[in-house]
């Protein structure tokens, strides 16, 4: 019997997620999976996992955990790891760390994202349900008992212990800032909207409402007027589809979206920009820009190359003992500036 990762406090909606469940949407089973697959793949690279290995995803506030194994190796995306003790120590995101038996640590609130991730070397010893460990809570499928974690849960570990080795960090962490505009492909039902509605959709800013969860983000702002009614015979929904119900307020469909639906979909967020949309929080602003399907496919290839490059460029981690808050803060600022140029050189308007 291998060790476990004990849940002391669950955080907000902490679930086990991998890259999603493939092949069962025809049966009405949503794919689920990480809201921000880029972060998931990068934290997995830091602990030497395959990119699709399931990790913990938390929203807004991270869990407090305790190591009930000789040792584990973890890495966080989106937020610092705070190792509890006297004094507490902080490990920045995008860096691996080995933790020993009895260590209690918490994931701080993600700074620039709705969601954060904790990858564990070797992954979690949980059943693969319909080919995936992703949790779909609405039907209690996958993950840990099909639900968000609760206090006193014990997550079984695949790997008995973590070998000692030099810890690593990403030399080029991704920029978590929102792009100025999220790129979409118009359709499949853009013909159900007035020309003015399409123009408004592409010109205006929208605000992410409080109705935001793993299923979707409801946006506030201008009302988008239907030209041909708002009920259609249900058809399939792609992740990123922007459906507009009778209220005229668009909803971006995220990982847990239903497989089919009966509202017209004005546009679809391209897959390269979906991770950024997954990071949006209530109150955030979002604007759209339309591109062609082939441009969207090309953007995805650019993103893939970018993830691969970042995953490969691992450098020695900063010695934890050397850190203090000021140094950390300075380092984050510097890397933020570097990354901004990094991303803009690739595919910005």
């Amino acid at each position, binding site marked *: 019997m291998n060790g476990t990762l004990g849940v002391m406090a669950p955080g907000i909606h902490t679930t086990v997620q991998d890259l999603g469940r*493939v*092949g*069962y*949407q*025809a*049966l*009405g*089973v949503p794919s689920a999976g990480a809201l921000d697959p880029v972060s998931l793949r990068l934290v997995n690279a830091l602990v030497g996992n395959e990119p699709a290995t399931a990790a913990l995803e938390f929203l807004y506030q991270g869990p407090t955990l305790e190591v009930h194994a000789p040792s584990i190796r973890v890495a966080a995306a989106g937020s610092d790891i705070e190792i509890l003790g006297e004094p507490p120590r902080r490990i920045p995101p995008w860096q691996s760390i080995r933790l020993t038996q009895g260590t209690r640590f918490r994931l701080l609130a993600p700074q620039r994202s709705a969601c954060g991730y904790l990858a564990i070397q070797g992954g979690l010893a949980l059943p693969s*349900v*319909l080919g995936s460990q992703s949790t779909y809570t*609405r*039907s209690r*499928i996958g993950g840990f008992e099909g639900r968000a974690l609760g206090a006193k849960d014990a997550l079984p570990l695949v790997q008995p212990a973590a070998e000692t080795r030099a810890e690593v960090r990403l030399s080029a962490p991704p920029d978590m800032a929102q792009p100025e505009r999220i790129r*979409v*492909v*118009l*359709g*499949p*039902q853009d013909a159900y909207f007035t020309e003015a509605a399409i123009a408004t959709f592409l010109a205006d800013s929208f605000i992410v409402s409080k109705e935001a969860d793993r299923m979707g983000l409801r946006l506030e702002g201008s009302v988008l007027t239907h030209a041909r009614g708002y009920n*259609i*015979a*249900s*058809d*399939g*929904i*792609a*992740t*990123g*589809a922007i459906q507009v119900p009778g209220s005229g307020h668009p909803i971006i469909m995220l990982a847990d979206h*239903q*497989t*089919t*639906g009966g509202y017209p*979909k004005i546009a*679809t*967020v*391209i*897959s*390269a920009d979906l991770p950024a949309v997954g990071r949006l929080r209530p109150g955030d602003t979002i604007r759209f820009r339309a591109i062609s*399907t*082939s441009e*969207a*496919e090309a*953007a*995805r*290839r650019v993103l*893939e190359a970018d993830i691969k490059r970042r995953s490969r460029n691992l450098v020695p981690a900063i010695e934890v003992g050397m850190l203090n808050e000021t140094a950390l803060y300075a380092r984050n600022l510097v890397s933020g500036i570097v990354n901004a140029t990094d991303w803009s050189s690739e595919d910005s308007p």
Partner: protein
Amino acid sequence: MASIEQNQTKWDLRFLPSGDTALTVEQGEGVDRGLSVAVVDLASRIERAALAGVVEMVPTFRSLLVHYDPLVTSAAALTEQIGALLDQGPAVQTDSRQWCIPACYEGDLAPDLEEVAARTGHTPAQVIELHAASAYHVYMLGFLPGFPYMGDLPDSLHLPRLGTPRVRVPAGSVAIAMGLTAVYTFESPGGWHLIGRTPIPFFNLRREPPALLRPGDTVKFAPISRETYDRIAMDVTNSTFEIDSVLAA
């Protein structure tokens, strides 16, 4: 060859962009059995052709959503390849099945039966008889894992959805709305009229595939007593229920 002519699907495809990971292949706009059969036919053709980069497909009332991997293929390539599959002979035989689903239309298992009867000008017994007399076509699965949209309901049972949806509809509820009937496969919110309940599990992770039905199947409901309902429910709980027993011969 008249028989082949009859089997030939009349294709009217529109390829609608759904981002860079999916392509909507629309064959019509309404709810129509012929259209549904054509959608299922197209899905089997694509499945058999094993087109590179197709990840999965979702057949619906009037369209097929083809999920694809943009690192392997493109919408343009798929549009061309799918177009080329249409000329290849008559409709593909799909292995659709016929089911006879026991359902109890009594008491608290049928909370809306009286009202449906009143609003459609029938007695409750007539509603049950009408609902159980038709063989329903499974158009698609969606909304919940394994949730079947089936039709068509006899005209005299057509009702709009509830004005205010229920917060909690029990799993197994047999429901009607508009021209359709369905079974709630999980407890969930819902706005359809509940006229009965089946003890048969429509979605079971220990089965492969986990959904009982698939698009193209035919379903009839067989009224059962409360005693029979309870007995089958017990067998299901004890895992002694044989799911093949609801396959029509």
